[in-house]
């Protein structure tokens, strides 16, 4: 069995700063990381491999610096890493990303299960998984909290706003996972060392037979700005009994409690 775990290499949101003058994001001192839920996707693929035996291919598409992510993806237990280098992908339309990943998955071939994160930790568009499924002509199960594989039957628990949904589905399928599905491992020294020896490939769009006109984005990113929440600056003074009820009243008015 071959399982593909798709991931996005994103800026670490903890390192983002907001320029006070124009509210734009200062990203120059921010580190890159594998997007949070995508780590869960890799982890789930690797857990299934460890239980049932499989090959896990970690797949990412992005600008040149994303290549550095392969070692991390491999240290997390994937067996092979494939990176599709395309600088135009910076801030891309999820439709374009899905198109590229779908082609790559077809090229890899002989694959039964694709894991994605429910959304990326930068734009959280939640689109790549479902779009990928459409392009592959496969079903998709989103927001999955638990998986169990029995032969070619996948039992998945979906976490929805108002409850859980249990679904059973025949492979092949695309699955998007939540952050609760597992706790991604922190790679050990030996895992990091072995990552360097695992196969890594870099493909271009040409390798996938994709022409530049096929990756023209329909989505234009005008700007990204930080939201600054002003504090209310209300101070309640005086008799504790009275001030407490004032505070409670104010909080109720704000809808906080």
């Amino acid at each position, binding site marked *: 069995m071959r399982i593909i775990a798709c991931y996005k290499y994103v800026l670490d949101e903890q390192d983002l*700063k907001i320029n006070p003058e124009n509210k734009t994001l200062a990203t120059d*001192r921010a580190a890159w990381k594998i997007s949070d839920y995508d780590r869960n996707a890799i982890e789930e693929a690797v857990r299934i491999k460890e239980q049932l035996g499989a090959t896990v291919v970690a797949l990412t598409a992005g600008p040149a610096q994303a290549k550095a992510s392969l070692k991390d993806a491999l240290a997390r237990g994937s067996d092979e890493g494939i990176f599709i280098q395309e600088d135009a992908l910076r801030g891309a339309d999820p439709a374009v990303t899905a198109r590229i990943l779908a082609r790559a998955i077809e090229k890899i071939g002989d694959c039964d299960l694709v894991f994605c994160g429910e959304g990326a930790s930068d734009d959280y568009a939640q689109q790549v998984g479902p779009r990928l499924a459409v392009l592959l002509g496969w079903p998709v199960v989103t927001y999955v909290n638990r998986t169990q594989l029995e032969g070619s039957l996948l039992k998945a628990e979906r976490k929805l706003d108002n409850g859980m949904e249990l679904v059973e589905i025949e492979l092949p399928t695309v699955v998007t996972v939540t952050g609760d599905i597992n706790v991604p491992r*922190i*790679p*050990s*020294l*030996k895992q*990091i*060392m072995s990552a360097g020896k695992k196969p890594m490939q870099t493909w271009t769009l040409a390798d996938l037979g994709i022409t530049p006109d096929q990756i023209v984005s329909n989505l234009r990113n005008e700007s990204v700005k930080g939201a600054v929440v002003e504090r209310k600056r209300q101070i309640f003074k005086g008799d504790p009994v009275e001030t407490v009820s004032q505070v409670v009243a104010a909080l109720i008015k704000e809808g906080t409690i």
Partner: protein
Amino acid sequence: MSEEKFDCIIVGAGPAGSTAAYELARQGLEVLLVEKGDKPGSKNMMGGRLYCYSLHRIIPNFWEEAPVERRVEKEELSFLTEHGAMTISLDNEVLGEAPSHSYVVLRADFDAWLAGKAEEAGAMIATGIRVDDLLWAGGKVCGIKAGEDEILSDVVIAADGVNSLLAQRAGLRGELRPEHVSVGAKSVIALPEKTIEDRFCLRGNEGAARLFVGAGTKGAPGGGFLYTNKESVSFGLVFNLGALIKAGVSVAEAVEDFKFHPAIRPLLEGGEVVEYSAHLVPEAGLAMKPRLFTGGMLVAGDAAGFVINTGFMVRGMDLAVTSGALAAKAVIAAKEKGDFSADTLKIYEDFLRQSHVYSDLEAYKNVPELLEEPDMYTTLPALVVDILTDLFKVKGNPPERVQKMVMRHIRQKTSFWKLAKIGWKGARSI
């Protein structure tokens, strides 16, 4: 590489470890560099001043490719009282002449670059991994243990910084003594490039290094520093830990108060603190030097206590680079002999003795004694500031003769005898 064994495992990707890894990998040895931070530099103090000569010997003109901030061409030393400051300022283009110049660097960037050089040269780097212990065989170190994983090597270089766990595990040193270390608290304060240039009278890539003695540390032994980066300043205080404990001063509080000193406040005005951290600095030099080798193991950089703190400069990175390179040289010599016993590895200490590391540490070995002198931080700054204040102030009273005024201040604040003692200590130690 045979699957399980490296020629050398280096613990810590600071300047010492990365330099050692670079030198060894360049010679074709199989090297593993292990760093506990998620990235090299991520656990390091964010800014500092790198004296270039030592790394220049290893990577000529490295500053042309390394992420450096500003080249220091302006040196200022200030004596501070609670309200005043007396500053000596030196502008000289000669200060910027390669390779005896210095750059301000942000460690997160610089350390990552240097570790990257080692990786490019062929070293394997593993980050996010804390080494927990050493492996032993036949009384010799033969590898490391990290979590469940055990990895073997002919030699381990402990470049794991001031609080070297490995040197301790190997029995090469005991616990750190408070009087042997300082604690440094540093913040990076963002300011627009133009503001920095205007405020510190800098052009283009020029940078300023400022040091402060006196009120900043609330009279405790130590000092303040401020270095200009491109778009921020690295600012902070260094205290002798022993003295700090005795004086009962809170570091965080002292740093906050220091920002509001009349000589400092205008320099930081409008800036935003973007990073803050605290770290130890070894400062007892040769007095705290551990044993530097044992069978299968060497100790380099801060782990060996190789830092010079003269009160007007902190130099650790340049010594870390040289000691890392010399540790690599010793490993190569041992490999040629095929013998990694203490008897062969002791050549490391000979290399150090022939290098600037020992002569520098030797030259400044009495400095700690001078720096312990409490008058340095209270009486002296008050003396210079008050004398000069009286000199420049016009009160409309009949003027006091300068000589008499100076005598009066000396008598009020101290005595000739005490001044002479400090003067003698100063002359002896610097």
